[in-house]
């Protein structure tokens, strides 16, 4: 399979995702089906006891989603199981792998270690919200061009993390490999810096070489 057909397949998949996105968007005005089922199956819980389900409105990729969730539901589970945006992946579910990385108010975080109910009013961006209708996000395109994945499971987290990482670098942030933290000025994203700044995302296929290549290309094109 050559690069072009890979890209074509990516575009087809993208169209599919856009389609499902449109579907969930139309559902945004009523409680999503899964949440409604969940609520209906536990009628007594809503009335009494700790942890009764509550109505929460989440702003995901620019659309409002109304969900009814118990306080213990993580943002990750709300996205996947209640809203139906399954691009964000559940890896370890304990903050050790980065597969669930999403952007909240433009900052990358682990969606598995935060509660959905705590994110009312926040701007949440998932991998489904990165591309425009016609074009992949530059980071997505570079991951395809440079084989930044094999099985693809960690990829949405890697891509969201990379988008956050590039933004952090533009804001002159330091990392553990920054030689002199007192020196101010633009961050030079060397391969060592990229590796350290992407170290919150594990890839068991070992696609790290491709990921660093992809991000180097994004940097070159944006320079």
């Amino acid at each position, binding site marked *: 399979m050559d690069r072009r057909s890979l890209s074509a397949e990516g575009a087809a998949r993208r169209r599919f995702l856009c389609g499902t996105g449109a579907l969930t968007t139309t559902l945004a005005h009523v409680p999503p089906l899964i949440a409604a089922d969940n609520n209906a199956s536990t009628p007594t819980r809503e009335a009494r*006891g*700790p*942890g009764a389900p*509550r109505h929460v409105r989440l702003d995901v990729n620019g659309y409002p989603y109304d969900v009814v969730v*118990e*306080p*213990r539901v*993580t943002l990750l589970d709300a996205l996947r199981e209640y809203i139906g945006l399954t691009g964000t992946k559940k890896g370890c*579910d*304990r*903050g050790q792998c*980065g597969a669930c*990385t999403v952007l909240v108010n433009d*900052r*990358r*975080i*682990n969606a598995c*270690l*935060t*509660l959905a*109910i*705590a994110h009312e009013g926040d701007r949440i961006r998932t991998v489904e919200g990165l591309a425009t209708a016609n074009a992949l996000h530059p980071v997505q395109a570079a991951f395809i061009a440079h084989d930044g994945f094999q099985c693809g499971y960690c990829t949405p987290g890697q891509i969201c*993390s990379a988008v*956050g*990482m590039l933004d*952090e670098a533009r*804001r*002159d*942030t*330091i*990392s*553990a490999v*920054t030689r002199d*933290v*007192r020196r*101010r000025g633009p961050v030079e994203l060397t391969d060592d810096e990229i*590796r*350290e*700044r992407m*170290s*919150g*995302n*594990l890839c068991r296929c070992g696609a790290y070489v491709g990921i660093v290549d992809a991000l180097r290309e994004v940097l070159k094109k944006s320079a």
Partner: protein
Amino acid sequence: MRAFDYVRAERVDDAIAALADPNARCLAGGTNLLDLMKGYVEQPTRLVDITRLPLASIEPAADGSLRIGALVSNTDLANAPIVRERYPLLAQALVSGASPQLRNMASVGGNLLQRTRCHYFVDVGFDMCNKRKPGSGCAAREGSNRIHAILGASDHCIAVHPSDMCVALAALDAVVEARNGAGVRRIPMSEFHRLPGTAPERDTELRHDELITAVILPPSPFADHSHYLKVRDRASYEFALVSVAAGLEMDGKRVRDARIVLGGVAHRPWRASGAERALVGHALDDDTLAKAALAATEGARPYRDNAFKVTLAQRAVARALREAASA
């Protein structure tokens, strides 16, 4: 995770009032608490979300100290220009911990209250853990204890404190500010974290009905010569086997004052006062470094799997001091 009630505190006093419930916990970044709740180590019946409280600013005070709000994220603290300039040791320690995502979430107050990563504490499948279940015993003493303490442990607990930030805060003589129903209490870092003794279930001196509101950093004489060195099993995103926060105040080639605090070796950040004394008044030659390194682990008592930490800590101290001197 067990079910719990969720309330959002709008004012500091609301949060403190909510803590009157012994089964309530504050929720800030959540990176440690929710992890422990998923493992049933923590089972609060109520979470008090304090993230909307006005405790997220970093403010220089007239006396030259820096007041850091308890809700400042680890990322924001590490990158604050005034921290990078005046307390580079703290900035370095912060970015050596966890991952960028976790640092974006984790708060200063939460980092102070981070719980140990001892295998027997974090896994409720183990019956014995005095910290989790007082009186049940310590499985780590006879178990897998490669990551455990070599200093200051007791027969009741040999766990280590996991934070990097706290090691730097201890070296910088930080003070923790806490509020309770009666007023404000200031606790020096040297007294904030406890040794396990006979009550390892208590990590810190903070009482349950107190809320950490800020950390105060006095002016530091170590800004020009400091280094945080972290040694771990992989290059990043891992807890320390041994870490060293080293600060030097130089008088020409001689050391005027020094701070050396070790992480990963004890139930709290471990101040190596003997090593500091070995340095003061001397030039940093190989002989002095060797004496300081040896003094840093004075009284060490390793267990079956972690004797390597004694040598590792000594070498880390010498290297951190060299780096600090050349910084």
